[in-house]
């Protein structure tokens, strides 16, 4: 079953003029779709995985560890792939010229991180728990706290951008972006609290595993 949200989801107002109305054309598999950029060895520094430690001091908020494993649709770990994350600060404010939310910016928090999966497809970020924030979609609209994730995978067709949410958020029921996902797949967007990743006296741990879709029918591999 297709776990992805329909492009036209009118509860999320921005889809109405942006979702294509013509059905997509099924692309025959070609080499271009089975290959993809190799960005793993790019200029990613270890410090890029720590959003909580700013250049001149620690970010405000609840420090957390977010970790998990990236796998393909066959369940195999995806190693050496680039993950990019961005998020609001603990007060629910993005460091962006268009974010006018009346909440403080944090001088020690940029809200951007990068890392590369290891040989088992695992990744780990340190950050602060983002705040919920209001948006103009409908009256009294608030986004549940989330972290944006971008994953490359091994093929251009595996490319995924998604959002990670936190368990038991009371805003889920009111959020048209979260609810655009078919009900059976929504819990795949919600991280689990992970005591084993929690660092004593320092940070709460959450686990968010990611599975890349890839093509619906995989071409035969030569043996």
């Amino acid at each position, binding site marked *: 079953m297709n*776990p*992805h*949200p329909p*492009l036209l*989801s009118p509860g*999320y107002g*921005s*889809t*109405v*003029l*942006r*979702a*294509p*109305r*013509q059905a*997509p*054309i*099924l*692309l*025959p*598999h*070609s*080499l*271009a*779709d089975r290959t*993809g*950029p*190799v*960005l793993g060895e790019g200029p990613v520094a270890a410090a890029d995985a720590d959003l909580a430690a700013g250049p001149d001091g620690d970010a405000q908020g609840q420090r957390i560890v977010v970790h998990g494993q990236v*796998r393909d*649709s*066959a*369940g195999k770990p995806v190693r050496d792939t680039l993950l990019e994350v*961005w998020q609001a600060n603990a007060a629910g404010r*993005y*460091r*962006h010229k*268009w*974010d006018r939310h009346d909440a403080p910016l944090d001088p020690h928090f940029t*809200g*951007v*991180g990068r890392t590369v999966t290891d040989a088992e497809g695992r990744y780990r970020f340190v950050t602060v728990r983002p705040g919920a924030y209001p948006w103009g979609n409908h009256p009294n609209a608030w986004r549940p706290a989330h972290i*944006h994730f*971008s994953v490359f995978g091994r093929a*251009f*067709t595996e*490319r*995924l*951008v*998604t959002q990670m949410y936190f368990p038991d958020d009371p805003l889920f029921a009111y959020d048209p*972006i*979260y609810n655009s996902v078919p009900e059976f*797949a*929504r819990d*795949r967007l919600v991280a689990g609290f992970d005591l084993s990743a929690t660092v004593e006296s320092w940070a709460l741990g959450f686990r968010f*595993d990611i*599975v*890349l*879709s890839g*093509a619906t029918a995989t071409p035969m591999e030569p043996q």
Partner: protein
Amino acid sequence: MSASPTPAQTVGPYLSIGLTWDEGPLVVPADAPGAVWLRGEIRDGHGEVVKDALVETWQAGPGGEFHPAGFRGFGRCPTDDDGRYAIRTLKPGTIEAQAPHIEVTVFARGLLHRLMTRVYFADEPAANEADPVLAAVPAGRRATLVAEKSEDGYRFDITLQGPDETVFFAV
């Protein structure tokens, strides 16, 4: 063992925080021999420019091979306040009997999943005529996939919705 895929979500309006690289638009250095600019703008169903999109490109090199030495093959560029993007690259060669083309992904606020399209080149009429992917596209919509020659490269506009809607692909 198969695994259950993670659903996509929109990049939202603040994607430039996480997905902008200074060198992103430069698939090749600006002064690389033979380099061209692939430029265009993105519009919505009302014809308004889309100022918060991201275009990503993936392509073969001039020899038609993926991952040739020293060629990243990948570009990314956010749209500016006029809805425009620009990618500095080399025109790809013929790929597995397909006409030269560049794979394009579009992300934006209001797009709950990425869109995939392709850039073909107007100065390759014979190759385009023989291309199996273009042949699968209704004739009246093929022009939306063909970049026109411009002063410094090629122009490829993207229309998300409406009568001139760009052809998008599913995989």
